[in-house]
């Protein structure tokens, strides 16, 4: 059953979006900020759930580059 996920306390999605957008070359019109922040807050809720998985940070990530695989 899906839980209602909440972003980490103290996460200011609007402030983050405004601050980070120039760093990736993304124009962020003022009228878009609220909706973009709402989406980021939702994603933050999902990401917070991942942080609760034991020893997640030391796990091997899934996509592993294999040298030479493209040479066929």
């Amino acid at each position, binding site marked *: *059953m*899906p*839980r209602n*996920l909440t972003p980490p306390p103290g996460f200011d999605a609007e402030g*983050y*979006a405004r601050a*980070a*957008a120039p760093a*990736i*070359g*993304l*124009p*962020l*019109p003022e009228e*878009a900020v609220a*909706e*973009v*922040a709402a*989406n*980021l807050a939702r*994603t*933050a809720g*999902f*990401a917070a*759930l*991942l*942080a*609760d*998985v034991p020893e*997640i*940070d030391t*796990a*091997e*990530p*899934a*996509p592993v580059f294999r040298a030479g*695989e*493209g040479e*066929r």
Partner: protein
Amino acid sequence: MSVVATAAAVRSGRDTAADTVARALAALEAAGGLNAATHVHAERARARAATLDARIAKGDEPGPLAGVPFAVKNLFDVAGQVTRAGSRATEADAPAAQDAFAIRVLEAAGAVLVASTNMDELAYGFSGENAHDGDTRNPHDARLSAGGSSSGSAALVAAGAVPLALGTDTNGSVRVPAALSGVVGLKPTYGRLSRAGVHSFVHSLDHVGLFAATAEDIGAAFAALDAPDPDDPVQARGPAPRPAKQDLRAARLGGWFAAPLHPDVAEAVEAAGAALGASRSAELTLAEAARAAAFVITTAEGGQRHLAGLARHPERFGPLVRDRLRAGALVPAAWTGRAQKLRRRVTDELAALHRDADILIAPATPCPAFPLGAAEHEVAGETLPIRLGIGMFTQPLTLTGVPIGVAVRRGARSGLPVGVQVIGRPFEEEAVLAAMTRLEREGFVMPPAAQETAHA
């Protein structure tokens, strides 16, 4: 008419490719109200059919799929046309130089491309609603969603307009519309089918998939599609295909996959379990986290994929995707890093469950088709947010890359199709299709929607 029957008739000379294609073009016209096709390739299809018939007349081998008309989601490259991916964001792109690999191999096997199909914009959605092209309508009830994002491909097969269609599945975009439109679907093993010439959405998760009326038809088309392509750098070749065992061991996925379920879906899962002798239930404990990881990877990679477009011409993106993609582009690397690590964990956990079961069974969606335009839908007394909820059973599994078929039947209460996911081990598509054939013998069949109307 089925893929197998069409090809047999054309190969034997009982029918011609030209007549088969002409009937498909007429059926596409008749199905126009579904808004499922965005482009009908009539001239190209007629020319191709004429070439095939000439080869057959000369006694040349026309291929195992001779004369089989098929449609593709409009994110597959078609030579000479701009690949739209259901968006205006692509409108300034150069026309495709050649057909997508999947189209080339199907046509090399004798099949004939007849249409490109409607989809959720940039494949980001489960409803088939599109701000530019209009909404795809469910052939079983035009007020309802056909499911998405490969909405038009599923709807055309469900309406009987084409026997075969291609889509893509990132979080469930083949499996959800298969279930909601009532057609058989297959999302093969991640990397197995070439994605060359397919407009990408989420590189880590995109799969090419298929729709048809039966598992046999899916198998016939899959055999042609399953070919090495040096132009796809992530294509993965597994061990040599093995024929499916006679005694498939099956188990049901419980836990996350047990609720919320519309009674029609719960009964379908029950019936599939009984048909496959699945007495055991297995739990994928990381399912909820896997779904979260798929969500994070999707929004982040999708946003990065379209970052240049969002900077240059944001007005060309529809309102259903624009701000989701902007937000995705801003996702911190720490979130996606954990998501990719979770992907490894859940893949390992599913492999452990597959040690004791060749096939795992799970619902495809929590409920049958929902009304177009709906934001929420009640399922078993719970209010489910459609955009987040409809893919809750497909999304965690997509992350593992295993092959998954969808078998469908009519729900007793709703009268609408519902689907069950048939989940195999990596590269064991044969076992998935064998299990689905067994389900078809046990009542998992939906006649084309148009025929139902005719007989009503």
